[in-house]
């Protein structure tokens, strides 16, 4: 679905992503894990066509480049910020993002209702987004991301500031979406919760440390916690 071949991104003399090779297959939940400043958001921005790599190549669905109009129609993005319109109602926000993708009016309206039901925001649909709590806003963001039924969903720290029960609900929704063939690319620095991903990549200072299933990584580093596996992978790389 998304392939990075020797991708490097530099800002001046600072290398943020360093010669990265990554292949993310279709229909999985893929976790891009690493501490702040490890290059996760830069990779996402390159995948969305918002940034150009300094060198290397990114391809989506084998033949398309990020930023191509066809790719943009199939791409859903949920940023870390609460990027919705506080002056629009919950219903209007979802409708607006659907209309941006040119979805026919009757379809977009029925989809909006379905999505609001899914994220349990139907009773709040007439409330202004600006009046919602943080957790509700996250759910609204997810609904606006899914309205055009994207085949690649990029989620940047989707569970940041979300309470534990809602965090579990989010991961359930991600798993359900992956089962329908949607590819989900998630970044998080809550490494332990990423054990629900089908595959993960450990990143540090723009370099790829590991790339495998959470189970295999935990087995490789002989631990039962993905966070410990990450620490050991980092130490192993520093140790040489």
């Amino acid at each position, binding site marked *: 679905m998304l392939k990075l071949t020797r991708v490097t991104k530099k800002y001046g003399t600072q290398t943020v992503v360093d010669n990265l090779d990554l292949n993310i297959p279709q229909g999985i939940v893929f976790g891009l894990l690493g501490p702040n400043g490890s290059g996760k958001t830069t990779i996402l921005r390159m995948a969305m066509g918002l940034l150009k790599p300094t060198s290397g190549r990114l391809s989506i669905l084998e033949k398309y480049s990020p930023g191509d*109009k066809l790719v943009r129609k199939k791409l859903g993005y949920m940023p870390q910020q609460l990027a919705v319109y506080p002056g629009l109602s919950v219903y209007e926000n979802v409708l607006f993002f659907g209309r941006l*993708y040119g979805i026919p009016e009757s379809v977009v309206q029925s989809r909006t209702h379905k999505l609001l039901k899914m994220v349990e925001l139907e009773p709040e649909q007439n409330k202004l987004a600006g009046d919602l709590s943080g957790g509700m806003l996250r759910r609204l963001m997810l609904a606006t991301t899914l309205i055009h039924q994207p085949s690649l969903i990029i989620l940047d720290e989707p569970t940041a500031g979300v309470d534990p029960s809602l965090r579990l609900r989010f991961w359930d929704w991600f798993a359900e979406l992956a089962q329908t063939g949607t590819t989900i690319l998630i970044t998080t620095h809550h490494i332990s919760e990423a054990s629900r991903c089908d595959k993960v990549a450990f990143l540090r200072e723009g370099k790829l440390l590991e790339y495998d299933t959470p189970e295999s990584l935990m087995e490789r580093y002989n631990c039962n916690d993905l966070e410990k596996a990450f620490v050991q992978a980092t130490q192993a790389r520093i140790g040489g």
Partner: protein
Amino acid sequence: MVTHWISWRIIREIMRDRRTLAFFFLVPLLVMSLIYYALQEDETARLGVVSRGVMRLFEADLMMTLEEEDIELVSLDIPDEEVDPELLEKLIWAELRDGHAEGILFLGEQLLEERFDGKRGRIDFYLEGSRPTLTASVVESVASAMDDLAASLPVVIDSSCSAFCANSVNIKPLDLEEHFLYGSEDYRLIDFFLPVFPPFFVFFFTFLITTITFQRERLRGTLERLLIAPVSFAQIVMGYIGGFIIFSGCQAVIILTFILTLMSFKITLSQVGAITILTLLMLLISLVLGLLASFLAANEFQAVQFIPLVILPQIFLSDMIWSIDSFPVFFQWISLALPLTHANVAMRNVLLKQQNLWDSWPQLLTLSGFFLGILLFLVLVSSRQQNSA
């Protein structure tokens, strides 16, 4: 003790924000300079004198009297030869139209004959008329010089005329007949300022709201979401224009209606159409300028700083209230780079000079150029920011 740490934090942050520092220290200097030049001196009206026939003999004396007045005497590009009166009048109007003087006094050879016939004697006074302050200044100066001119003119007194009678003939006031190129003596000072209100207010409010709204769109992250959707940057700009045009359009209608009510003269439908087009052009310019300002600003604080930086020079240098002639050449060059300068000229041409909108084609062309130039710069800045973000 905690207080000084809060102060320390503020000082550290501001010291690191060079744009804020510049705003803090340079903008007051700029504004004070503008106020200084704006209020430094009043505009000086220019007067030309044309005399024909025997009246040429009295021109030098008249000029000496007029030199004592607070006006500038200018020489005109009218040949000093006897020509058809109609042609001469055309030449006088052309001088006024070309902006060489605010008033031209014409001393015709019939003046003495009329005085000798016991009449007051007519002097034609041609006025440009579009700037009430200058018109008033030139009229006042000429009026006070007329008594001296009347006294210097020869008189014919018959033998039956007593000393008192002779004196009364001498001081008989001249008949000063005013002819206006634009407007009339009914033009009030406020009529000169009213036409600039619609473009200014539309520019000011649209720039203000666009800058803040788009800055919020960027900081909130929704702009990024728009940009990854199958939406082009041009579509976003057009969407903004479409959204704002309704409110700015309503605002423009309110301002225009208010101003048209206040105007002391009749406004035609084509004039309303012309000023609507000009206001719309200013709306488009302020919109793209607002978008550009929000792109150049790193945060809402910096975006707010653009507002006085863009608005204040336009108030001072666009010939809105103060004549640009009272400013140094440097500021006069800057005034040419301000959209409001050109909009004000066109608005006054349409409303005060009763000209066709298309007669102001240089201004229309310049304003369109401003819109396209800023739009192009905006696209460049936005794509550059995307690649370096």
